């Protein structure tokens, strides 16, 4: 990557740290942690599914905050950050919607049901798919970025709805991760440690991917500036 000074240092630290974190997470999920007494081995999907879901919320939260800042300040920095976080959030949300049904098939007996949490998560995916399509169709112009920013802010309203959906509506999606002794849930301290570590590993992955994607957008802007400079000479 074409990086210099502090940017190179961030990349040199964050990339190996993320790699090590993900490798350690795999070790914990497949070797360290015991299987759930009720759900069996398939419960191990949760250790990636839940952190992916939380990082999806974080990513789209960053989109909303960066979009507000872009509309307020009008600087390319905030627009680039919003666009980068939206792309990474979209990837994570897609993985949530893939890993969830794979877990649900053996546990619920169905791949998909129009449950409140599943439906609101699908709506979140569709909102930010529209956001990314809008970015692609509108090109690098200021007006398209402003329309997308509004969608990025409005879309984030779905995040607290997803979070509260298991309490507001009758749903079969698990609401809590730790249940009474002997039941299904993260009762074993090793399970809680594994989930906690996976949160850290996925946060590092999120930060690294947004960083790389943001550098990508910065280079694209540099190319655009150079083109304009050449045309004006």
């Amino acid at each position, binding site marked *: 990557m074409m990086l210099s000074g502090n940017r190179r240092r961030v990349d040199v630290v964050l990339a190996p740290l993320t790699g090590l974190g993900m490798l350690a997470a795999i070790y914990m999920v497949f070797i360290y942690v015991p299987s759930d007494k009720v759900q069996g081995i398939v419960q191990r999907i949760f250790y990636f599914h839940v952190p992916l879901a939380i990082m999806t919320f974080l990513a789209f939260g960053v989109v909303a905050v960066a979009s507000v800042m872009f509309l307020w300040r009008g600087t390319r920095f905030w627009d680039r950050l919003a666009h980068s976080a939206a792309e990474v959030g979209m990837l994570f949300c897609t993985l949530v919607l893939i890993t969830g049904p794979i877990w649900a098939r053996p546990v619920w007996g169905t791949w998909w049901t129009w449950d409140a949490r599943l439906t609101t998560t699908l709506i979140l995916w569709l909102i930010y798919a529209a956001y990314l399509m809008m970015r692609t169709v509108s090109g690098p112009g200021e007006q398209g970025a402003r329309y997308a920013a509004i969608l990025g802010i409005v879309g984030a309203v779905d995040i607290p709805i997803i979070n509260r959906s298991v309490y507001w509506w009758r749903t079969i999606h698990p609401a809590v991760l730790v249940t009474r002794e002997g039941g299904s849930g993260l009762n074993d301290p090793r399970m809680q440690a594994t989930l906690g570590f996976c949160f850290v590993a996925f946060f590092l992955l999120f930060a690294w991917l947004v960083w790389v994607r943001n550098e990508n957008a910065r280079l694209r802007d540099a190319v655009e500036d150079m083109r304009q400079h050449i045309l004006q*000479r």
Partner: protein
Amino acid sequence: MENLSFLFAAYAAVWVLLFVYVVVLARRNRALEREIEELRQLLQRR
């Protein structure tokens, strides 16, 4: 080891999609770096 195939499918999906995305980002970066270098040379020639 019941439902091992579901566990494998879930983790395979995560790793394949993450790998593809990282490769796409790396390719985009390389293409942009090439473009910047070409534009820089063009500016020097002018």
